[in-house]
């Protein structure tokens, strides 16, 4: 009899533990569930539907951290921007900027979700911007669903600066395309969505400009792009259409001499501040 009671007690404990575990598992925040869904399985509408029904969050106020689901926008790129020379050549402006605030979410008037941010320029690698600019990034929210570009190529989603939208307060190295008078969105600086194109300088929003510039001076990615500038590889379509704004070839000798890597070699005493060439 004692043996039966003992075994029964053990069984009861096991059942309680299993029930508790199941309760905790199924009561996870929906964002945690959604982010664990692989891109391929997300293409099944039924699975997305189930996920959205479970949520009680308010995406408008918590969209940064609690997307209901994540879906991918996929692109084929015109060139291999993992080559720094091509990334520099395919960008009209490359600069370091701190993201101040989100100012737009052009999800309805274009075919692809995009998000615009106001950004404060800290320093330049290509071109000569200052003050505040609007940067536009492919990706954004539609009805609580976060659309991101090429997340299958970006590695872990929780890595700093990886795969998700630019974060307010953070400072980034931004290779951008900006071609005036070419129609929709031409006023924005379009961030290159090639995997790894954006560099994270700092997530600390309290750093001063001087402190951020010190980080940039020692940032290996920034140096890499500075060194690549004299050997920039331009896009065929940019050459064909006259969109090679700020190409190295277009700079005057004085502007070249002002670069930290003049003619590809480190230039410890730049002669003057570079100016933009349109």
């Amino acid at each position, binding site marked *: 009899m004692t043996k039966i009671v003992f075994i029964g007690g053990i069984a009861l404990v096991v059942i309680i533990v299993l029930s508790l575990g199941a309760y905790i598992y199924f009561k996870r925040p929906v964002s945690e569930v959604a982010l664990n869904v692989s*891109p*391929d399985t997300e*293409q*099944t509408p039924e699975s997305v539907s189930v996920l959205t029904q479970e949520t009680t969050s308010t995406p408008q106020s918590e969209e940064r951290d609690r997307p209901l689901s994540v*879906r*991918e*926008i*996929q*692109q*084929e*790129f*015109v*060139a*291999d*921007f993992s080559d720094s020379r091509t990334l520099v050549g*395919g960008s009209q402006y490359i600069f370091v900027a701190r993201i101040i605030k989100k100012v737009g979410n052009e999800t309805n008037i274009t*075919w*692809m*979700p995009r998000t615009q941010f106001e950004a404060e320029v800290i320093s330049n690698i290509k071109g000569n911007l200052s003050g505040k600019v609007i940067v536009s990034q*492919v990706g954004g929210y*539609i*009805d609580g669903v976060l*659309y991101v570009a*090429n997340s*299958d*190529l970006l590695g872990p989603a929780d890595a700093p600066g990886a795969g998700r939208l630019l974060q307010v307060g953070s400072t980034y190295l931004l290779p951008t*395309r*900006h*071609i005036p008078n*070419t*129609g*929709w*969105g*031409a006023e*924005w600086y*379009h961030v*290159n*969505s*090639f995997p790894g194109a954006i560099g994270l300088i700092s997530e600390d929003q309290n750093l001063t400009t001087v402190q951020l510039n010190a980080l940039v001076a020692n940032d290996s990615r920034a140096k890499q792009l500075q060194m690549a500038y004299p050997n920039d590889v331009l*896009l065929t*379509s940019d050459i064909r*259409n006259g*969109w090679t704004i700020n190409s190295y070839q277009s700079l005057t000798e004085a502007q070249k001499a002002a670069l930290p890597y003049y003619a590809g070699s480190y230039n410890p005493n730049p002669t003057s501040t570079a100016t933009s060439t349109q």
Partner: protein
Amino acid sequence: MNTSTRELKWYASTTYSNEWLGAISAWNALGKITFSSTTPSSTAYLKVYDISSPPDEFTGAWSPTPNPDELVFNLAHTSSGSSTQKTATHELSHALGLAHSFFGNVMYYIQTAQTWLGNKDIDDFNYFWP
């Protein structure tokens, strides 16, 4: 894409109709998906059209926006020929569920002139559509 009937009804309005039909032909040869054109565009599962966006750096894109999915060619960085047929096959493959892969396959995410399906493309397709 209707996953239960394995049918992809598409509506295309593009200057790259030859490249688009070439892409359809490449996957149709494997015989597992039924492709059919349809009008009006509201009856399609996939809408194909052109944009001209110089500030973007992509040749083509597929977006799973609600009803229907959209596939675009970026006229700013494309021209007729094998490279754009690769773009067409690449983006159509996304609509069929395939993800990016490596050089030697149409799912390589940088434009090349490869118009034929690579081994990884076919393996992934057969995995997705057994």
